[in-house]
């Protein structure tokens, strides 16, 4: 390996390491956010919001590194796919970090009042969302399209759970108007968790693209914007 190639390999590895570091930070942030919500731990919630800066900083670093790698080494094929994937995964992860902060903000607001009800569905949703993120990052590490596709199938369950949380909270609101503020805040939390699942799905779609070069998002559309099944039928 020449010096240039070694340098190139080092850039790619650093990029991968930073993305996973970002993923780890976000995973941890989400876990802490949910614990802060369930345990009504205000200090933990504030810490998560505070540490979101680290996530943002790391995002900037990754962007810079990706652009630098593109400009200096002009990679092709698999490496090019990896770098473009990295540039798309990073905002997804950063967004999830923001969602964790949002959960903490709602948790802090909820702590100002007595608990509305024991939280059962929301921790379950959180566990599922965390699992999706965890597995999508694992799929990214091992470049495993099968694992990635499996994670995508988990998203439906998260959506269903959000629906049921939503219905339950609506029943609380109907029962007593004093519940409305708290119920709405919990609804937000459920929505944030559902968004985390969606972002994990995005990551998995990118992992499939990375491993197979196949675009699986928006399955009903091709690049020229036509629906392939409609074309066959016509």
């Amino acid at each position: 390996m020449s010096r240039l190639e070694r340098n190139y390999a080092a850039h790619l590895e650093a990029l991968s390491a930073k993305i996973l570091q970002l993923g780890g930070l976000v995973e941890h942030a989400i876990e802490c956010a949910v614990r802060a919500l369930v345990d009504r731990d205000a200090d933990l919630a504030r810490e998560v919001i505070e540490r979101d800066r680290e996530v943002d900083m790391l995002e900037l670093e990754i962007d810079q590194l990706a652009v630098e790698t593109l400009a200096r080494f002009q990679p092709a094929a698999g490496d090019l796919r990896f770098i473009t994937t990295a540039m798309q995964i990073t905002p997804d992860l950063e967004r999830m970090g923001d969602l964790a902060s949002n959960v903490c903000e709602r948790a802090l607001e909820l702590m100002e009042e007595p608990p509305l009800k024991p939280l059962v569905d929301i921790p379950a949703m959180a566990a599922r969302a965390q699992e999706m993120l965890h597995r999508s990052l694992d799929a990214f590490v091992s470049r495993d399209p099968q694992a990635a596709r499996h994670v995508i199938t988990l998203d439906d369950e998260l959506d269903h759970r959000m629906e049921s949380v939503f219905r339950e909270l609506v029943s609380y609101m109907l029962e007593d108007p004093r519940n409305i503020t708290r119920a709405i805040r919990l609804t937000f939390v459920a929505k944030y968790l559902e968004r985390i699942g969606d972002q994990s799905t995005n990551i998995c779609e990118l992992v499939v693209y990375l491993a197979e070069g196949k675009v699986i998002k928006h399955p009903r559309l091709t690049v020229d914007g036509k629906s392939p099944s409609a074309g066959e039928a016509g």
Partner: protein
Amino acid sequence: MLATAIATGAIVGFGAVRLIRQAVVDRYVERYKSELRLVSASLPRDAASAELEREIDRWGALVGTRLTLIGTDGRVVADSILPGEPAAEPDSLADSPEVVAAQGGRWGLADRTAPATGVRYLFLVRRLDPDAPARYLRVAIPYADILHARQQYYWPAALLLLVGIAVPALAAYMAVRRWTAPVERLRDATRRLASGRFDEPVPGAGDDELGRLSSTIERARQEVLRQMGKLQRRHEELQLVVASMNEGVLLVNPDRHVRLVNPAFRSVLPRRMEAEGRPLTEVVRDPRVIEAVDEVLATGADCRQRIRHLGQTGRSFELVVTAAPAVGTERRWAAVALFFDVTRIEALEETRREFVANVTHELRTPLTSIKACAHTLQEGAADDPAARDRFLGTIVRQSERMAALVSDLTDLSRMETGAIQLDMREFDAGSLVPDVIAQVSPKYEALDLSIGVDLPMPFTLRADRRRFEQVLVNLVDNAMKFNRPGGAVTVRGYTDELGRRALVVEDTGEGIALEAREKVFQRFFRVDPTRSRELGGTGLGLSIVKHLVQLHGGEIRLESELGQGSRFTVLLPPPAASAAEPQAAERG
């Protein structure tokens, strides 16, 4: 070597051919010279040409080849032509090369083709004495004869040559070979060693310098093998130690790649892929672990921290990262991370903290009201008989509550430390159950409960009667305390298919929610804290029940439906006699 032999052979062969060729020609020339001398000596002087012709023919036949007498002017004087040979010769032979050559000396020799016949001859001419009848005598030696003679020499010569070259060459080769073969064997052996194959021995090579060299190398090989074996065993021992450790071990190189993990680590952070050789972030993503490892790699200072809820398992670990000097790199530190599972310890610590908080709280509440009552009495209430009685009553009730709490706590702690000795006897529960009901029910007369008992007669249990009574009192007391007015409490007994004795206490109270069912047996857990305290419970009753049943070797089950009631079932191991002889027990 072969090339040298071939070159030598070629040179010698070429020389031999030249030599043979010249020797044969010379031999012929010599022979015919002497014959020409003889002929010329015997030729008659001053003979007539016819006589000369005859004489030449005769000599020609004797010599076996053609003789020609040539005159001074080059004309043929006489010629012995063998039958069938054309006699034609040019008129004058004065210009022929052999004659020209003979003019200079006594002899002339020419190798040329006779123009008339096209046959090649070696012509030898002798200049005759002046008194001779002709000037020159010439003999024509057919070249074919010479060639034929040569052929006879070539083959033996070639054979001799071959033997003469090949045999010494072979001998030399063998000699060299004898010296080089051990060197080659030694070279092959050292090559094997260089490529890491130490299993084949180095061949011996006699007693000379080479032999000593090869035996030295062989000793070195054995030493290397021995050292390798030692290292291998050492490595296996360490491997075994690392593998059998309960703590997760993670070794990270200075370049932040994972060098080694042990099986325990894989249970700490389950990953499907092989961890060794991968970048740290691919194996561990938890920012707390990464930060700790990075810090150690950067500073070389050890680092210890508590990591709660690591990974998907949610367990807690004490993470100790130690800097280890890295071998063979510029950067100086590798990091050894040890993961001690402290989940259980944390849970225990948590339980103890909660317990202390609970006990403090439970004791402080009655103490506060006792203190308040005493103060009020001090400040003059003692003079008012009605107030005095009320406050004294409160003090007595609250101190009784404290006493009950302390006694329950004492029981619990004695059970937990195993200080309670059970006095196991067989007895009939038929008398025990009504006793317990009679003891408990007066407190709850206001609730107007209907109480049912359904026991087989007799219902033999094996237990410590006094302790088991405590179990029943607690259960029946709970069943009545948390019942609705006009509700029912039923105590039933039966023997299950394993011979175990089951005592069931059912109520028609509010029931216990699913998430509370596990917790009702924990100390100080109350489904409804305010109500329970109003009713005067210590919060330790079911905890004591559970411990006592377990001390008896039994188990306790809880079924419940919200709004319908709860059912506690105590299962005790069968009494020894009935387990061995169920029929006998029935007869009894």
